[in-house]
């Protein structure tokens, strides 16, 4: 009897493994297969160029993905920079300047924030930030790249703070005793010892954060305005996940339009893979 149960469990482990591998092989292969019609019909020059527009439903449809790619990268870079400046400061403040008990409460809050759905962020951005920008920056519409970057930046904060905190704790355990004995001030310790030793791991964390940012759909889509034009800080823009979510529902299965969306997502995936690779390389050589 025990043997039967043992075999069942072992079988289940291998079946689940098989299902997982199959599932993800399917995702990658399907993304590539579905992209082929668009690449064959329009060509890479038609999908990525500087002249045409993203205008998939005209008499002569044009599919230029470059504005959306630029929009995605622009928003994500800006958001990561925001999150980095504020996140690193917050991590240092929580670790060095606040009493531990109080800091722990804030850390629990941040954990919870990481679980808040992106729609909620989008909604808050839409009902507070967008009217604010509209009023104070004299815009025709408050939905813009800046709004999307700020919302995305807030969403990245918990991740950045926890990554920074982990590295800071490692450095503290190792060097704080010595530096205290040497009579160094806290600030000198932060600037000269913490910063120099966590540089690489923070960079790796930032690259990972960037990877999360480029895939974010709902929150960005709600505040960016969704116009397929080249991004300007205070103008509308569009991201790859944004167009996919908005347009895939209204397209037939065999249309080139859908295939073009697949190409867009394949590009997104390639960017993501490069980012993951870079962050792994950075992490690999870390010395704390």
């Amino acid at each position, binding site marked *: 009897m025990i043997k039967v149960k043992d075999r069942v469990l072992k079988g289940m482990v291998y079946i689940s493994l098989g299902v997982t591998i199959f599932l993800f092989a399917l995702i990658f292969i399907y993304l590539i297969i579905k992209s082929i019609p668009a690449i064959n019909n329009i060509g890479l020059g038609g999908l990525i160029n500087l002249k045409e527009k993203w205008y998939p439903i005209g008499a002569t449809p044009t599919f230029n993905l470059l504005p959306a790619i630029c929009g995605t990268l622009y928003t994500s870079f800006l958001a990561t920079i925001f999150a980095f400046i504020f996140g690193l400061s917050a991590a240092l403040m929580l670790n060095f300047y606040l009493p531990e008990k109080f800091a722990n409460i804030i850390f629990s809050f941040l954990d919870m924030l990481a*679980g808040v759905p992106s729609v909620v962020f989008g909604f808050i951005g839409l009902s507070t930030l967008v009217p604010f920008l509209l009023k104070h920056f004299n815009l025709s519409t408050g939905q813009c790249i800046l709004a999307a970057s700020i919302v995305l930046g807030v969403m990245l*904060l918990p991740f950045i703070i926890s990554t920074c905190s982990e590295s800071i704790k490692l450095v503290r355990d190792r060097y704080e005793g010595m530096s205290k004995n040497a009579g160094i*001030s806290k600030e000198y310790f932060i600037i000269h010892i913490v910063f120099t030793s966590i540089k690489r791991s923070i960079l790796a964390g930032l690259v990972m954060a960037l990877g999360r940012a480029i895939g974010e759909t709902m929150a960005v889509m709600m505040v960016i305005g969704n116009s397929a034009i080249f991004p300007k800080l205070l103008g509308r823009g569009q991201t790859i996940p944004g167009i996919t979510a908005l347009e895939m529902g209204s397209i037939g299965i065999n249309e080139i339009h859908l295939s073009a969306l697949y190409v867009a997502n394949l590009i997104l995936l390639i960017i993501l893979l490069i980012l993951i690779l870079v962050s792994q390389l950075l992490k690999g050589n870390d010395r704390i």
Partner: protein
Amino acid sequence: MKRKVLDNLIKSILIFLGLIAVGLTLFVFIYVLYRGRRVISIRFLLDNPSGIPFGTAGGVFPAIIGTLMLGGLSALIGGLLGILNGLYLSLYSKGTKSGRILLHLITILSGLPSIIFGLIAYTLLIYKLGMGKSLLCSAITISAMILPFITIRAKKIFDEKGYTFFIESESLGLSKPYIIRKLIIPNCLGELVGAVSLGMLYGMGAVAPILYTGVVMNAPIPTSVNSPFMSLPYHLYMLANSGYSDEYALGTAFVLLAMLIIIEILCHLFASFREGVGFKRIFR
């Protein structure tokens, strides 16, 4: 003297920026929970949505149930597969090349944008397999999304807690599956439930994967896995984006956030009771 001025300057800059960051995160909770509480009433929680435009009157009851059903179903599928994968990664393939490759693969997958799952599920399940917009279709999509997430956490739990048991029991001559069934799973149950429900929360809040695979604006409580359903995040998205009723959007956001917080607290409770620590550890 100059050193001291510089030190104070650094300190104040860090605290200033840090306080803004923490303030922003608190703002998210305060905005929704404080402003949304006025909308909440028994009627809002237990009524069907109504009104023209739709959703501007009545309640959100079917959406609450729909979200919970979606979460439960995907936690069941994704959780089971995720835990089994975690077992494989931690106990069956430790140190082997295939294990390492698989771990890398799963790490990549956990970073995959949710919209890719939505896109592929839409073309594959709805068009190719002809499934129709349904709870099951959405649940499969969400399970695929949370599977790597749960796998990584389950592996970590088994690595930390299960491995010593494993070495000791294996040297007593017990078989691998027996050790897993009798020692490792019972011992890690609290944490595993925590990991699965974190994945579930992540899945319950996602909109992009379910956008075209099952969720609709108006549906009764699903009677089978083949019927379409309502979901709170989607409801919130529609209300907020169309701008019909800010008040009802706030109420929906409140319910969504409150639900997530309650589930999270329940999991902490469960985990700490399993460890016999009681209430003390719940808030660290």
